[in-house]
Each structure stands twice: as C-alpha cells, then as structure tokens.
C-alpha cells in the first residue's frame, strides 16, 4: 500500500477520509489548535467517524481543533496533557462519558517520538513523586531515579504543514510545528493537510523538517 501512495501521494480529502475508521486510535497535531488540520477534523465530523481514541496535546476549544470532536462526541478516550481550555471535555469526563488520560507534555512528546524512532521506551525524571509514577517502573542510573515511559503509537496521524512537496516532504510555520513532526513517525497511516502543495524539487532539502518517506497522503488545506 505504501508503495502505491509513494507514486501519487496527493489525494482528495474524500479519498483520505475514507481510510479513517470507527474505533481507531488517531494522533492529531496541534497545540491549542495551532497546527491542527482543521479540514480533516471537520471531515471526521461530517462522516460521523466515532468511538475514537484521540492523541493530541490538548482538546483546544469547543469550536476549534480536537475540541470539535469532543463536542460532537466522537471520542471514547482522549490522551493528552491538557483539557482546561475546553469545558466540554471536563464535563464529559466527570459524567463518565469520556475517558481522559493525562500525560506530562514532554513525556507525551517523547513517547510519540520513541514509537517513531524505534526506542522501547525512555527514562525521565518528570512525574517522580507525583500521581504520574503510579504503576511505572523506577530505574536508578548513576544515583538518580527515573521513570520508565513507553512508546505511544497510533493507527492514523493527521498532521498540518505549511508546505508539502509532492513527495511528502514537509515544512511547518511558526508555532504550528509542535507535535506534527513526531506524529509523522509514529502512525501506520500518515495524512497531511498542507496549506500549499508544491512540485518535487521546489523545497530546499536543507529546509525540510519532515522527510517525505513518513507521509502517505497529502490533502490541500
């Protein structure tokens, strides 16, 4: 499948959305919806693809980013670092309608990166002496104690880029980069919404942030 897409990665929004299924685990880029592929998120809502496990830094706002999936009750479980800007997430969580797993932001980023770069996990001081250490193995290295954190993968990653070339090489804009380059490495199917799609060879190889080999499909944002 990957081989086919390598030949022609630029697809319609409809085509891309047809690969997202009920009940899947989906990573979505963005920090407070900056760097979130909004038209792909809107597509999930239009098609009512539900029962999802969603991994995103936060649930943004009721009318923006992943927050819209919460409001439309398409998420069964949310994994991220912050839900405070979207009152609907807390409401559904307290009512027992939405499972929420909170992870320190740096640990979330590194767990996703670990999955993408072939690590079996990593050792971090973050969360020691807090509820985060519950159920986790503690390992001492050179007299310092660390928590063992494990990789985090998904079925699908939905990313936002400023520019994509036809090979899937990506460039981001300002604070919209955040989790996108990490998620690009950590999902079975990677779909990118790009503001601009340019021909092969028109991006300077030195400026490319995400190598195109991680990207399966590109949709015009």
């Amino acid at each position, binding site marked *: 499948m990957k081989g086919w897409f390598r030949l022609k990665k630029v697809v319609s929004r409809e085509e891309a959305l047809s690969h997202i299924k009920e009940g899947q685990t989906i990573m979505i880029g963005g920090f407070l919806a900056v760097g979130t592929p909004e038209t792909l998120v809107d597509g999930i809502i239009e098609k009512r693809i539900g029962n999802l496990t969603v991994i995103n830094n936060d649930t943004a706002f009721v009318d923006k980013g992943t927050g819209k999936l919460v409001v439309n009750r398409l998420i069964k479980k949310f994994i991220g670092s912050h*839900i405070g800007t979207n009152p609907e997430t807390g409401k559904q969580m307290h009512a027992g309608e939405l499972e929420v797993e909170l992870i320190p932001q740096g*640990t*979330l980023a590194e767990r996703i990166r670990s999955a993408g770069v072939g690590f079996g996990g990593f050792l971090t001081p973050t969360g020691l002496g807090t509820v985060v250490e519950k159920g986790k193995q503690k390992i001492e290295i050179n007299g310092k104690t660390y928590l063992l954190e494990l990789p985090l993968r998904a079925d699908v990653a939905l990313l936002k880029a400023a520019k994509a070339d036809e090979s899937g090489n990506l460039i981001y804009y300002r*604070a919209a980069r955040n989790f996108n380059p990490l998620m690009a490495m950590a999902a079975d199917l990677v779909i990118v919404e790009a503001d601009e799609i340019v021909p092969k060879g028109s991006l300077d190889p030195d400026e490319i942030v995400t190598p195109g080999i991680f990207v399966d499909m590109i949709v015009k944002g």
Partner: protein
Amino acid sequence: MTAPRELIVKRVARFLKDGDVVNLGIGMPTLVANYVPEDVHIVLHSENGFLGLGPNPKPGEEDPQVINAGGQLVTILPGGCCFDSAMSFGIIRGGHVNVSVLGALEVDEEGNLANWMVPGKLVPGMGGAMDLVAGAKTVIVAMEHTTKNGEPKILKKCRLPLTAAKEVNIIVTELGVMEVTPEGLVLKELAPGVTVDEIQSKTEAKLIIPEVIGSME
C-alpha cells in the same frame, strides 16, 4: 504603595541574570517579562515550540500561528527559532532552561509544588508544568501569599496532588521572599511594612529567620 502582583513580578524579574533562558508560566508569571532590567538580556522559551518569545503584537500585526502556551497572541523576536515539542521539552528536561517561573495552589517547606489539579473540582491537566519544574535549573514560585479566603498556601506538606517533588528553589509573594533549603524555608526578604510576625501568621510552614533579612524593594 505598589500593587501586590506588581511587587511580586518586579522582584522575580531581579532574579534573572544576563543570558538566562527563562520560561514564564501562564498568568502572573507572564508579567515578569515587563520588569526585566534593561541591562539584562534573557531569552524567553515558549513550551509550544520556540525561543525568542516577544511581546504581544501591535494591532494589525497579529499572527494566529504565533501564540504562547496560554494561547495568547505573541511575537517571535529577531534571532528567535521554532522547533517541535520533543526539542522544546528536551530543552526543558535537559537543564537548558535556567529559570522557570510558575504560580502555585500550594507549595511546602520541602519544595514540593502543587499547581495542576484539585481532585473532583478542577482537572485541567499538567500541560508542561511537570517537565518544567523537574527540568529547569531554578524554579521560582510567584504567587499571592494566601488564598482568596486568607488561608495559607505555603504549607508544612502539600495536600493537593503534586506537580513535582522537592524541586522549588524560591518562593516570591507580596509579603516576602523565601528560599527552600534542606533545613526548611528561610525568610530572605520582607516586603516594605511587613513584619516577621505577620508573614509567619499567614504561613503554615515554620519560617527560619536569619539574623539579617533583606528588603524586597
């Protein structure tokens, strides 16, 4: 008389040294940037992925993709740079942030900090706070000395779920400056007009009183 918050952030600003990489938390800590002395050049880190965080944009120059961790529109100063979240928290965890300034719900005499949740009431999530407190070289808590109801926030032992254990170095409130030491909280400075008795009466932890106490202003 200086307003309490202004007194706090002005004092925190004087802890910053030329060349420091600094992360300012959401709310009152953000205001510290307005009081950094002119001859002190610091680099502000924004956890959502850049260094060189600048002031709020002028009207007409807003860029919706340049926000701080609190979602406010900001700017990136010349010389600034953007990166992904793994790099951002690598900078934090790796000890490359000299000073992290955060607010607190509770802080205690061992340097434990609670600022991310109140069980059953407020569960916003820890965001980047746990990494910042565990990773920054110096952690400064900037907060009002008591709750709105006048109850102490500086305790013998935190009661709320912790953000990090034994990581706080300095506490700055409108009443004074305290330093966390292995022996306990040392009262380093008092705000103008505040007595040792007053600050102790509003603090649950027993303050260690040195022979000389400085002035906060």
